[in-house]
């Protein structure tokens, strides 16, 4: 009882310290749970959507880049008698009134559906099926989706789909059989297959054919028979493939976010450690007296842990609440990035995910307790008399320094080994990174002593006695300053590391764009979705634009994606002038030697991530499923590409037309004739567009737009970086404030012996500024080390991108300024309060 009261009084006397500790925990928990929530929400959204849409299908027939010819389905039904099969045409659309919101269009044949899916519909009259099948643009959706879009039954809604503005009409409602299906259908519009073909410009083609095949030998036989009926570029894959390949595609991205959020938690832990240590040290007299009075070690231990638990619970509760809010925002960012980089998806409503909350809560409380244990041990470890002595603690602490430093160095070495081990994967990369950070942090107090002893003469020369005192203060109170410095270093270094990495990446992309985008004007169909591939251009238009007087030459391109048992393969086919080809950013291979066979469609180029993921080098052969069956083509070059981390296969249009039944073009680019300006060329194209909805963009604008997307993608990284810094800032603030508040008596003595309030301020601020400066300086090597690990290990393993490494001095200056500012700010409050209090009063205070 007395213990609890003591703890309670203690908290009341320094409410701000308690509040800061709670804030520290809550920030860490908030960041972790928000990132977890966002990741899981995104993952759930595409998994459930993929599974709901797949229904009971066990297998799927998938085709080439433009899908499967619809006659394949008739053949399956009429010749093959496979009645457990259902055709599907899918794509996406965006309501005009809700730009940025994407819906998946799922076109089905209701009569083939029963064995596959049960998106049942409440048909109350024959009108629903009739209009679904006979009225162009009729769709079904969930009642709540209709409400969100503000439409009622039979009303129409303007949408952007396949590069055109069309009207769809709500013919009826989907009635999902259960809650999971309801979640999966949140961003889905179901329509007849004819409507889907017309809306998506896929007349004559199917996206896939869903199959229900029994298990065992009978099923194997059926699959064999089905395969025999398929054209060369079509194949049968298990139905689970899609969901898992979507998962695989985004796993690296999501893992990186989680690691960044753990960094925030780690900084938060430093904070808690700091607070708890301080609260123990400050109460050493009290604890000593309690021990002398007969309070057992166990009880003291329980008291410290109980306090930590309270802080942990309060901070965690607050953190979870903030995490939920933050999670909504992060989900939006994550969704946008996935849309930009991977595939079109939509997270309708943020579901309540108990898993994420429980994980966040556990992490918060356990981390708090873990951080409090050293302090609790310190309080109980020493005999009662020794506890009373502050100097004993400091002495013991200093004895531990070499040990901690050695441990740190060992840990860093272990981290280094982990990083060098190629097979470690992304997790290994992050484990190495964290080992480096923790090891470095452990060595920091020892380094601080060395450095402070080094700068002390300088301080005393510059600021006299006050300077000397400030410098000594840092060393003397190392039990606090050491940890505070380490926390600050870790946070600031993370800022530097991530900053350098993003900066280097940005520079890399800029350089890459220079060699990748060589034409003067680019044309593609207007597209309001944020997906990577664009709707095809009208062939008549392509024909018309091929004879542009202002253009010296032009290129045609088509970006299409093919589903394989291993996931999606993106194929970029291009008809480009040889000069453009020769200017491509080759990583491996000789453009001059590659050109002839590439042009004839007899070899392909791979993007760097593709070659890394599939372990293909120049000279290896890539096997593609084409309409002539499996075709094996040599790889004549590896080029840098930062558009896709799954990688792309690049082939000439000649080859593409030969291998795939897809004459469509989705992009054109033009090279201005000498004497014609880019603006003139763009105007000429615009004039000939003839009212078509096109995006005409000049080279400069396109580069700018690409960089905008780049920045948008890394917005989330930036946000996390700032959050980590905020956690660190709060950390250093609380640590230094705690330290100075504790020294109230000592400072009062200084006042009593004649130091003016200004001089006291000088001592305090000098001390904190020195800590800030040390932290800033110490964070530089760690930050650069982190950037190196991120660029050369984590990113390469996660995304397969080679990046330039460039240390922008701005990040370094920023880091030092930041830490010094934080430290100075932390010194101001205690200094001001000391200055205000009369020394006599402060001296009278017992403690």
């Amino acid at each position: 009882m007395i213990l609890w009261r003591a703890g309670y009084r203690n908290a009341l006397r320094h409410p701000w310290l308690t509040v800061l500790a709670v804030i520290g925990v809550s920030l860490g928990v908030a960041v972790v749970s928000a990132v977890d929530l966002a990741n899981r929400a995104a993952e759930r959204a595409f998994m459930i959507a993929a599974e709901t849409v797949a229904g009971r299908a066990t297998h799927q027939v998938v085709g080439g880049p433009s899908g499967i010819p619809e006659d394949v389905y008739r053949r399956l039904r009429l010749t093959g008698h496979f009645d457990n099969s259902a055709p599907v045409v899918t794509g996406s659309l965006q309501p005009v009134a809700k730009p940025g919101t994407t819906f998946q269009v799922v076109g089905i044949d209701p009569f083939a559906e029963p064995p596959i899916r049960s998106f049942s519909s409440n048909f109350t009259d024959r009108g629903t099926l009739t209009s679904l099948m006979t009225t162009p643009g009729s769709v079904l959706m969930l009642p709540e989706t209709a409400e969100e879009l503000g439409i009622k039954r039979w009303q129409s809604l303007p949408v952007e789909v396949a590069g055109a503005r069309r009207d769809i009409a709500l013919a009826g409602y989907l009635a999902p059989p259960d809650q999971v299906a309801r979640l999966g259908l949140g961003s889905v519009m179901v329509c007849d297959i004819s409507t889907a073909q017309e809306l998506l410009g896929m007349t004559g083609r199917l996206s896939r054919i869903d199959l229900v095949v029994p298990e065992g030998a009978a099923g194997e036989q059926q699959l064999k028979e089905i395969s025999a009926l398929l054209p060369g570029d079509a194949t049968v894959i298990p139905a689970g493939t899609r969901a898992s390949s979507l998962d695989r595609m985004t796993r690296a991205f999501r893992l990186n976010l989680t690691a960044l959020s753990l960094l925030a938690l780690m900084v938060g832990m430093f904070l808690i450690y700091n607070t708890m240590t301080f609260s123990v040290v400050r109460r050493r007299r009290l604890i000593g007296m309690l021990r002398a009075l007969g309070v057992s070690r166990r009880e003291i231990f329980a008291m410290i842990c109980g306090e930590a638990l309270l802080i942990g619970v309060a901070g965690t509760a607050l953190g979870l609440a903030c995490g939920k809010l933050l999670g909504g925002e992060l989900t939006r960012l994550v969704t946008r990035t996935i849309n930009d980089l991977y595939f079109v998806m939509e997270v309708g409503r943020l579901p309540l995910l108990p898993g994420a909350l429980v994980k966040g809560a556990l992490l918060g409380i356990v981390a708090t307790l873990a951080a409090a244990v050293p302090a609790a041990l310190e309080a109980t470890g020493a005999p009662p008399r020794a506890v009373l002595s502050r100097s004993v603690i400091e002495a013991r602490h200093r004895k531990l320094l070499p040990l901690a430093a050695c441990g740190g160095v060992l840990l860093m070495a272990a981290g280094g080994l982990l990083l060098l081990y190629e097979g470690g994967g992304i997790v290994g990369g992050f484990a190495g990174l964290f080992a480096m950070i923790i090891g470095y942090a452990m060595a920091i107090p020892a380094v601080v002593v060395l450095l402070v002893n080094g700068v002390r003469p300088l301080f005393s020369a510059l600021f006299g006695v006050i300077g000397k005192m400030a410098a000594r203060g840092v060393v003397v109170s190392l039990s606090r300053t050491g940890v505070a410095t380490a926390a600050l270093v870790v946070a600031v270094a993370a800022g530097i590391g991530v900053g350098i990495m993003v900066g280097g990446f940005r520079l890399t992309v800029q350089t890459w764009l220079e060699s990748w985008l060589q034409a003067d004007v680019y044309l593609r169909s207007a597209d309001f979705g944020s997906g990577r591939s664009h709707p095809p251009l009208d062939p008549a238009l392509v024909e018309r634009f091929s004879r542009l007087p202002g253009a010296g030459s032009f290129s045609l391109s088509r970006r299409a994606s093919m589903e394989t048992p291993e996931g999606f393969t993106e194929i970029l086919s291009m008809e480009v002038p040889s000069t453009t080809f020769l200017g491509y950013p080759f990583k491996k291979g000789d453009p001059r030697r590659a050109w002839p066979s590439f042009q004839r469609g007899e070899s392909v180029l791979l993007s760097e991530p593709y070659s890394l993921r599939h372990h293909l080098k120049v000279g290896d052969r890539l096997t593609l499923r084409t309409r002539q069956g499996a075709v094996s083509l040599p790889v004549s070059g590896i080029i840098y590409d930062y558009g896709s981390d799954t990688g792309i296969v690049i082939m000439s249009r000649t080859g593409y037309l030969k291998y795939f039944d897809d004459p469509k073009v989705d992009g054109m680019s033009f090279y201005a004739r000498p004497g014609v300006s880019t603006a003139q060329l763009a105007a000429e194209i615009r004039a000939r567009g003839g009212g078509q909805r096109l995006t005409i963009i000049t080279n400069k604008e396109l580069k700018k737009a690409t960089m905008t997307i780049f920045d948008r993608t890394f917005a989330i990284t930036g946000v996390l970086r700032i959050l980590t810094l905020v956690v660190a800032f709060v950390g250093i603030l609380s640590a230094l404030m705690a330290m100075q508040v504790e020294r109230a008596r000592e400072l009062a003595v200084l006042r009593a012996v004649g130091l003016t309030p200004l001089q006291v301020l000088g001592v305090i601020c000098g001390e904190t500024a020195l800590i800030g400066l040390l932290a800033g300086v110490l964070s530089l090597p760690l930050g650069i080390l982190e950037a190196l690990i991120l660029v050369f290990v984590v990113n390469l393993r996660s995304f397969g991108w080679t990046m330039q490494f460039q240390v922008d001095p701005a990040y370094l200056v920023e880091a030092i300024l930041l830490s010094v500012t934080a430290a100075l700010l932390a010194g101001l409050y205690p200094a001001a309060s000391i200055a205000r209090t009369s020394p006599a009063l402060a001296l009278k205070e017992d403690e």
Partner: protein
Amino acid sequence: MRPLILALAGATLLICLAFLLVSGRNGAGPAGKEMAMSVGEVLGGNASAGFSRAVAPRPFHFPEDHGPHPGFRNEWWYFTGNLQGADGQRFGYQLTFFRVSLLPQAVQRTSRWTANEIFMAHFALTDVRGKRFRFAQRYSRAALGLAGAGGRPLSVWLEDWAARETEAQPWSMKLAASDDGMSIDLDLQSLTPEILNGEGGLSRKSGTPGNASYYYSLPRMRTSGTIRSGKDTFRVSGFSWLDREWSTSALEANQVGWDWFALQLDDGRDLMFYRLRRSDGSVDPFSAGTLVTADGRSIGLRREDVRLEVKSWWNSPASRSRYPAEWRLRIPSENLDLQIVPRLENQELLTSFRYWEGAVAVSSNAGVVGGSGYLEMTGY
């Protein structure tokens, strides 16, 4: 008559159940009585606006009228038959194609999946010795060659179930269908000219004008070919019956079910009669039939010409419904007194619209004349 209500029910069920069916194969539909009610309710509106209606007798032209009549909402080709194997095994089969139009006029759209018509087909096989009754149901839109009717020579098909014209004179068709555990491959040749039912082919269903269909039959088609029941294949021969009907009819609210007889007698006479039952248990005055004499004359039958008695009942274990099992059918004016017994008790189709349709043996109470036939019972 019989398939009329069935098809209307089928059409509605297409709408109600296409998305709801647990399985296209054997999803048990709601009880027939309730269905018949809801069919009446659903089709009671003006859903038929714009479609042609059977109002007055019309001239029939063959072989054109064997083909589809797209202006009408519903139409069917209804084949049933009693067949015998070389060593006397008896089989019954049913292969029915229903055409349902969604709109009176075809829609012009670019997708080849665009369809204004839906086809539904039922296929059933009765193996009397093996005591097995198998049935299957299919749906499809009339698009992309998946299902359709038309052409010269005529084809009516739903995926790989098909009836195709093989000869125009005498009218001959080839039927082919297969499903789990059963298949048929039969050649049918008509032995009679087309028999027009009702008033020169106009078959009235109720007092409401337009609630009528155009209805003709080919009651005796010589049939031979092969069937497969389970793992065994049999060469078979016998007689088939083709009913053709098209309409844009609505069902009266008080009509709840019907019993339909199509009997081929050994003396060369063919008898079709349907009894429409009302919700109050009485027999609808629009019940009617046609008797074709051995020399090809047809005699119209009204309700009062035919006496029907249920001699025994059968309880379906699957649907728990009670169906009449044995019948006595008398036509005093024609001196007919027939005993009608199902060749197999259980010939119930648990399709989206549940009904009993199966092969029956006919014997004369006086022992003078025997025969075979098909019986359909709905609304039980």
